[in-house]
């Protein structure tokens, strides 16, 4: 990775994202950091500065205030001059049964994981289109590959991101804008802290170098860790009759 990359980040305090940012900071990255929580953001800003990063700017706001996105991206472009990498990493994992019984929970799930992310992605893609270059990385999820009874609410939102990223890849084919769709498997983060960990689980520290390599390689769909590509291939090809009976 070249040093001194100029990076715009939404969801800067998410666990996976902060491990990736550490790597970018140690190669003297320039950052414009955006997060929902100002306290967490302040912790993140100090950490990246110590690690060798330069914070060109940072701000926090509620990502569901969609009318603010454009101005935020505008300020980021102004502060960074040019954007080499955009990272969109925020999200939340709701309780599936809550989403079945409570319309408010379902709505929050879609807004946190699809609506806000999709609008930010579109807005950033627009900025990259204007400058004609840059890499846009967003975190979708293996959960979006197939609806499962245990978490189809979250899965449906992530599936939407997946379709959006596919479309963007097609839109930017032939240009210098790279669309990197990261599909994390089960990763031990605060978001998944309530779930029992096991053999297939990985950690943000372990997958961060894979995200960095994905940025270097350019546009595409990346399962992290890589074995999830095979697991999801099997899950996707299971007949409905079997899928419905599996306890997943």
């Amino acid at each position, binding site marked *: 990775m070249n040093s001194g990359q100029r990076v715009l980040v939404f969801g800067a305090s998410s*666990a996976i994202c902060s491990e990736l940012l550490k790597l970018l900071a*140690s190669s003297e990255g320039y950052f414009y950091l955006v997060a929902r929580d100002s*306290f*967490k953001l302040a*912790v*993140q800003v*100090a*950490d990246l500065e*110590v*690690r060798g990063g330069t914070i060109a700017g940072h701000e926090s706001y509620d990502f569901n205030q969609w009318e603010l996105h454009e101005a935020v991206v505008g300020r980021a472009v102004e502060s960074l001059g040019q954007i080499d990498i955009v990272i969109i990493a925020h999200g939340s994992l709701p309780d599936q049964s809550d989403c079945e019984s409570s319309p408010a929970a379902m709505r929050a799930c879609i807004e946190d994981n699809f609506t806000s992310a999709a609008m930010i992605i579109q807005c950033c893609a627009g900025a990259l289109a204007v400058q004609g270059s840059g890499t846009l990385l967003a975190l979708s999820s293996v959960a979006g590959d197939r609806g499962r009874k245990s978490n189809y609410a979250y899965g449906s939102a992530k599936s939407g991101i997946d379709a959006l990223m596919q479309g963007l890849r097609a839109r930017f084919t032939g240009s210098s804008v790279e669309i990197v769709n990261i599909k994390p498997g089960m990763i031990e983060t*605060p978001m998944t*802290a309530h779930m029992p960990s096991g053999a297939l689980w990985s950690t943000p520290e372990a997958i961060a170098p894979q995200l960095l390599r994905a940025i270097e390689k350019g546009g595409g769909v990346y399962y992290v860790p890589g074995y999830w590509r095979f697991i999801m291939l099997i899950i996707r090809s299971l007949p409905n009759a079997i899928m419905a009976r599996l306890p997943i």
Partner: protein
Amino acid sequence: MDISWGRLPIQGPSHSIEGDWRFQALPELDVGESVLPYGRGRSYGDSCVNSDGKHLSTRRLNRFISFDQDTGFLECEAGITLAEILDLVVPRGWLLPVLPGTRFVTLGGAIANDVHGKNHHVAGSFGCHLASLEVLRSDGSRMLCTQEENPEMFAATIGGLGLTGLITKAGVQLRKISSGMLSTQNVPFTSIEHFAELSRESMDWDYSVAWVDTTATGANTGRGIFSRAKHIVGSSDLGFSSKKRRLSVPFVPPFSLINNWTVARFNQLYYWHKSRNIEATEQHFQPFFFPLDSISGWNRVYGKRGFYQYQCVVPVEGGRAAIERLMGEIRHSGQGSFLTVLKVFGDRVSPGLLSFPRPGFTLAVDFPNRGESTHRLFERLDSIVRDVGGALYPAKDARMSPEMFSTGYPQLKRFTEQVDPRFSSTFWRRMQL
């Protein structure tokens, strides 16, 4: 993952919770339930384990807060590992002032055990270089502790085994280096007396440590290799990465690979190899400070039953004779291992109420867990240590008696007053009379 480094049959906690952000409150506890901060599980026995309660994992409290490149003052969260700190500071010309035998411990763990290194004779323990720390107590209060502010809590938390509350962050003064290279020398010695002499004449070396052959008999009794090192001034090689690929022990053998025969052969070879090469050589600090870090999971070689490390300190007065008696007992038992380390602690006073380092000799020996016979040997060793007014190191312990603990730590009562009522460990409960 192993619950602690010795892989002994110690019951883990029913569940573990994560601390995510240092400004957050402690997680909710059930009525009567206790909690213990848990870093990387590098303590050998049960001092980092809380079987009857929760573990509060600090692995995500791993952020830097500030670093002044001109003065070398570093402030960070307590869950960060020393390896991660070194990755940042070494290329900028700074080094942690005290480094234990592994870099895979957390800053919080280094404080809570007031760890020592090969430079104890000049630098003292880790706590000597600690400027400040913050303790989060179960009543929700936060105490910023320094030598001036909340000094009693500061002294209790250094070496306090995680029992005074959660250490959220700490500030430490680093040491300036111009290069990561050391000039090292290995000197063979033939007796403990000879070792003591070498230690005395090596006071102006930055680092010193000795390996002793616990299996040698007859004329070879008490032989070993004294290693000493100095920072090289003038060189400017500051390259460093703790992330190099490491060898690993990929599985747990069904029985211990460490037995009398392998240990004796290893010791002969090691002594022979090292004593042939006594010229001063240049070496990076990494293999000198952390020889075993190059093999990931080395603790597995002791097989399914795990191993104990017995580490004691005996005072200068009567200390040499005590070390000789300890070595004699170990040799006689035929249970010693090749990881036998001897070092002289200097006079610098450790700041913690329960700090282990104190002036004298410290001996650390690994023993495969052979159940009853190993325990009987430990009792014989205990009585030698107790006779001269020595102490055992809680970070390595899984079996000492409460009496042994209270005689070795005269400030125990003062310490107990600072313990957080909701914090506990298997070790701590075991130490209650």
